[in-house]
């Protein structure tokens, strides 16, 4: 779905990512991981077309970003920012309605779509609340509903891509579960997903593809089996740990460098 070819981003003389060539496979969940400052958000922004110089080096559906019309792109590619917040009081319903207006729905279709997604995301009782009064978790679910509405109906989801920037950072365990389930369901319908997340133990297990960045360069990319291994993770995060088998045959990465047990003696 997304391909970068030798992408380099230089901002104010500082090279943020250098010669990055990655391919995010269509219909899969891909995760970008790396230490802070590795260039994850820069890569994300480049994929979103935020850097004018890099537009021709990013291909979306085999077509360079600078040849896409912004409006067409918005119907197939949605983005959920980290901790999205607004200062202005809009009801959740209004918020969803405005985003759904990308598509020419009739009024009854619109109501039906919003109802469907509100129920799926579990925000149907928040619709008349103002977006300024929601908790971080509720807002993230509203954002997910908003992004889904932006992309349109299920029948063309396989052409669509959803980018999530640290979606779980403000959520509790229960809310995370809810969100990850929504992401997986979106993927099962054929949608492509790109995630940046610090909770690598969770995302690695729901990902089909991992891109690992270090100092603005690709350290490794591929299936979790290939990338999510002790040596690579050690190098990526500059620490020493090991990959163990967690519950449900999930693989988790545990650092062994620090002994965090409190010595009360």
């Amino acid at each position: 779905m997304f391909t970068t070819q030798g992408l380099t981003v230089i901002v104010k003389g500082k090279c943020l990512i250098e010669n990055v060539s990655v391919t995010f496979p269509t219909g899969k969940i891909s995760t970008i991981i790396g230490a802070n400052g590795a260039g994850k958000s820069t890569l994300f922004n480049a994929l979103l077309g935020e850097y004018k110089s890099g537009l021709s080096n990013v291909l979306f559906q085999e077509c360079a970003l600078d040849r896409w019309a912004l409006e067409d792109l918005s119907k197939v590619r949605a983005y959920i920012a980290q901790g999205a917040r607004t200062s202005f009081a809009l009801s959740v319903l209004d918020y969803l309605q405005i985003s759904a207006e990308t598509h020419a729905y009739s009024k009854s279709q619109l109501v039906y779509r919003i109802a469907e997604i509100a129920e799926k995301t579990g925000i149907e009782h928040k619709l008349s609340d103002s977006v300024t009064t929601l908790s971080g978790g509720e807002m993230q679910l509203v954002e997910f509903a908003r992004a889904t509405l932006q992309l349109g109906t299920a029948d063309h989801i396989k052409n669509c891509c959803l980018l999530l920037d640290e979606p779980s950072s403000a959520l509790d365990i229960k809310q995370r579960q809810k969100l990850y389930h929504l992401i997986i369901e979106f993927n099962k319908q054929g949608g492509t997903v790109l995630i940046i997340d610090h909770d690598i133990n969770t995302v690695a297990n729901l990902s089909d593809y991992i891109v690992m960045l270090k100092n603005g360069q690709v350290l490794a990319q591929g299936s979790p089996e290939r990338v999510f291994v002790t040596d690579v993770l050690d190098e990526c995060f500059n620490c020493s740990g090991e990959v163990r088998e967690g519950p449900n045959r999930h693989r988790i990465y545990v650092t062994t460098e620090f002994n965090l047990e409190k010595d009360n003696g």
Partner: protein
Amino acid sequence: MSTTATRISRQITKHELKQRTLLIASLLSLPVIAIVAISVGPASVNLLDVMFQKSITELQVNIITDIRVPRMMMTMVTGAGLAVSGVILQSMFKNPLADPGIVGVSAGSALFAAIGFWINASIGFAFIPYSLSIPLMAFFGAVFSIALLFAIAGESGQLQTNLLVLAGVAINTLATMLLGIIILLVDDSTLRQITFWNLGSYAGIGFTQFAPTLLVVVIGFFFLWRQRRALTLLSLGEKQARTQGIKTEKLKLWSLIATAAIVAVCVCFTGIVGFVGLVVPHICRMLLTSKLSILLPFAAVVGGGLVALADIAARTINMPEELPIGLLTSLLGVPFFIWLIRKQRGIR
């Protein structure tokens, strides 16, 4: 599924009913305010006299047609213009405290108006009639400060919002400093003219001032109205808006130009009427919504009505003297605003 859908359509209907009711109610209040505005004033003549009484002098008719009518219309148009530009600037800057002052437009026109008074008092303008010199200068001041804003904050056609705010602060400070220098240079009588211009006044407004103001405000409003969805999305976050298909740079550029033109005509004939651009948008946001398809017309109507009401009060409280209009917009609007804030606080 169907229950939620029913609930949503019911909620939409309810909201639309409330929005429509308030919008229509406020719209209906405008003709009432207009009739009152035309009917009261220090000269004892009112609309009924003109319409039905035969023994009426030419002067009395002229008081209505040449003084009160254009003045009432001017208060409504400038009130609407200032409120709308406040709404747009708040959305653009994603800052609820933004108003026409934030980008330095008011300060720029105040400075140029002061320079105009200074030139009039010393060498005088060649070619420009005296009565047009100050409005023209104020207009150029507004345009000039916007151009300066782009020069400082813009880079190859891009406008960074946080830089815009800082550039606005810089322009405000620069204009205030230069105004201070002008004040040091001018004589006592020019100083007083500058002070009074800054207080704002609708005395002496005729159709010659009203017509260009109406034209610019209507064109500006029409442009902004067409961008209502894009501007709502912009107010929710720039990057987000771009991923939703909005060409934010172009949108910001043109909206800023439209807003600046509206503010420029609204302050150049009447001076600066404070408060309207900041508080009217908030009153409307609190009463209804921040959705621009509703907020824009509502703020225009409330802004126009409020300034017209304030002008009625300014003209009649201490007849035949006039009070500064800015004082009365605040006097009328602030208590209501405080009440709304208290109410909002209670909900949370």
